């Protein structure tokens, strides 16, 4: 084990991520034994539907958590984007490309709102995002007059958007998601934005005293998060078409769980996009597996809750050992 731990390849990839991939594979094998349908391609495709929208949420919240903040509004914001854009589509006859832009803009606006209040008004992110979660839910309900909204079916006019998830049997969504993840990883690890976000997550005051506009960069993290929630909404409706106002909170925890499981520290300053991607796959597989086992959705809530606590606990303990 020691030898394995210290080998250069393991060090480069990170033990944590290797273990996570292991967990993912073991989980898949267990589910496949219990329910052989897991081996079928169409089942895998439908399981991937969950990965896409959750993945974009999780990627986004990784940036926010990297600053040492948190965003509990992403799930309802994602629903709000899907509802506002979908309602514009169905009731005001907005064309499909414009509806997509609306979805992304609504998400970005929530990002600006959250980011401004956190960075410039110094309101704790917990409070801000709790409040904007309710605002997102309320706003969506008001806008849609509390009606659920159905985006067009594949055969209907504008139905081409569903190809974003799956074209025939090709999982287009997977490629898009991985491409966005690569872009996120470059932004986080190689660009100025990511550097400032990680550094201010580690010690905001030191970064400020280095003459960096910390407020701007902190807000940027929230804008990235909100924008990705807007993109997430498009993939949600591409997979499931129908959205109901008043929901979406459960996806917060799932997105955050995927992120912290992947090695992003709740204390800020440390984040891993590849970890988040693997984490998202695990959460999505878990949700499919629970359904396959015939357990209801509530079990997934319990398990996600436990995962968040366990992941944060290990992070805190690891930190303490280092100090």
């Amino acid at each position, binding site marked *: 084990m020691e030898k394995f731990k210290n080998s250069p390849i393991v060090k480069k990839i990170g033990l944590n991520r290797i273990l996570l991939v292991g967990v993912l594979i073991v989980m898949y094998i267990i589910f496949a034994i219990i329910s052989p349908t897991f081996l079928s391609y169409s089942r895998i495709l439908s399981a991937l539907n969950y990965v896409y929208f959750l993945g974009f949420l999780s990627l986004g919240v990784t940036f926010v958590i990297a600053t040492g903040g948190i965003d509990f509004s992403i799930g309802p914001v994602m629903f709000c984007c899907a509802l506002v854009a979908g309602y514009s589509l169905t009731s005001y006859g907005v064309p499909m490309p414009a509806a997509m832009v609306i979805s992304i803009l609504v998400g970005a606006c929530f990002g600006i709102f959250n980011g401004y209040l956190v960075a410039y008004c110094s309101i704790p992110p917990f409070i801000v995002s709790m409040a904007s979660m309710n605002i997102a839910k309320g706003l969506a309900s008001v806008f849609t007059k509390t009606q659920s909204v159905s985006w067009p079916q594949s055969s209907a006019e504008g139905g081409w958007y569903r190809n974003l998830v799956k074209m025939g049997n090709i999982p287009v969504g997977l490629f898009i998601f991985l491409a966005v993840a690569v872009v996120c990883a*470059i932004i986080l690890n*190689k*660009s*100025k934005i990511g*550097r*400032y976000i*990680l*550094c201010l997550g*580690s*010690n905001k*005051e*030191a*970064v*400020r*005293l*280095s*003459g*960096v*506009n910390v407020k701007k960069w902190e807000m940027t993290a929230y804008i990235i998060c909100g924008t990705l929630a807007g993109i997430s909404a498009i993939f949600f409706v591409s997979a499931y078409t129908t959205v109901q106002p008043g929901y979406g909170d459960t996806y917060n925890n799932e997105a955050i769980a995927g992120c912290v499981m992947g090695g992003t520290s709740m204390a800020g*300053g*440390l984040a891993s996009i590849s970890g988040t991607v693997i984490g998202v796959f695990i959460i999505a597989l878990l949700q499919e597996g629970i359904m396959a086992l015939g357990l209801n959705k509530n079990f997934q809530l319990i398990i996600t809750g436990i995962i968040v606590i366990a992941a944060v606990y290990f992070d805190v303990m690891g930190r303490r050992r*280092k*100090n």
Partner: protein
Amino acid sequence: MGDVILTMKGIDKSFPGVHALDHVNLEVRKGEVHALMGENGAGKSTLMKVLTGIYTKDSGTITYEGKEIEFHNTREAQDAGIVIVHQELNMLNHLTVAQNIFIGREFKKGIRIDDKRMNEEARKLFNKLNIDIDPTAMMGDLTVGKQQMCEIAKAISHEAKVIIFDEPSAALTESEIEELFKIIRDLREQNLGIVYISHRMDEIKVITDRVTVMRDGTYVGTLITKDCTKNDIINMMVGRVIYEDPKTHSMVPDDAPVILKVENLNAGKMVQNVSFELRKGEILGFSGLMGAGRTETARAIFGADPKESGDIYINGEKVTINNPQDAVKLGIGYLSEDRKRYGVAVQKTVAENTTLATLDEFVNGILIDKKKETEIAQKFVDSLATKTPSVDQLVVNLSGGNQQKVVIAKWLTRNSDILIFDEPTRGIDVGAKSEIYKLMNKLAEEGKSIIMISSEMTEILRMSDRIVIMCEGKITGTIDISEATQENIMNLATREIG
């Protein structure tokens, strides 16, 4: 000196990649003050953490009162009578003195906390130590010195037999240090074993009986204090010649232009009508007691805290500095007294910290040029002799002196013309200190202008070309180095202002 109370023998401790303690020995007798000395990173704190159970040793033995022991946490060590008085005070400001001393083991009357009894017990403790502190006072209202006394009283109240002082004098004024020494001597009379960790050579000679010196995690030797000279100890600590070259006259040419001019600066109670000039190539010392308003002045100039009024001129031009961004753009760099909080992002690497103030220069399109960044960081690691395995090392793993060098590298990368060094050598060992002095002199020779805030008189006298003295938020005088003496500085620093 009495019998041996504590023996640590052949203590060995490794962390991943670091051999922190290599068979270190320490012996403490009853009724002695035993100095533990060594440069930063020599392993003093690690040794004390092994003793009090914060770290587990890899090998070696600890014998305490004749029995071999191993503590698993500080609580166990405390119960056995070994306590640490930390350099950073762990006090709750909104509780009373007595409540702080007995925190976690309050006297109770039924389920109620018995404040009356705690006050009485605290008073008894203070009497025993000859300290004059009201147990019912709020901790936050006391001076740092008095708070330290409370910390000591708290340690004694554990029925301590061995007390470890970890740089107790770092934040104290001269008179408070006198008082501290009186207490330490009393404790020695009472036959306690005392370990005294400090960087201040003068104190070691005054207060300690024996000295154990460590270097790079190894045990160098133990001396009897009165039989050795200051230089003996220093040589054991660093194994090299120390830079001691006090200034006798200003090195600044008479025609050097004024680079920074501050006029009637006001920022709260701590900065009142502050005016001064800084010339090109000058090291301007800021002297004064704790709480004289020197750091506050620096922070206000740098834009870290808001100003109420006042004008700042750089190269004769009036400038507006509303935040650190403005200051950095104008070529000012600020090295804070509290590196961990304000200087470095400890979870980030040496390279990442080095380029923090200049990242724009390392951006190629949208991506950071890692190669260039590594090159520059490596250049400063070499030129400042920063001790780090690589520029990709996390700053948290460096010692205080080396962290300071990373902060200096950050501002050198920025090529700032005006550098504010706030307590540049606080918590830094003798060897690294002289390196930082050399560096500051070199910077001044190259035409950088330096404001150096320092509470160490020797540092002020050794480094400054001119000295500004502050007291209670006001400048009380400015002295040229050729006329400066310890006495006239002290007079100005303690001057009563009507």
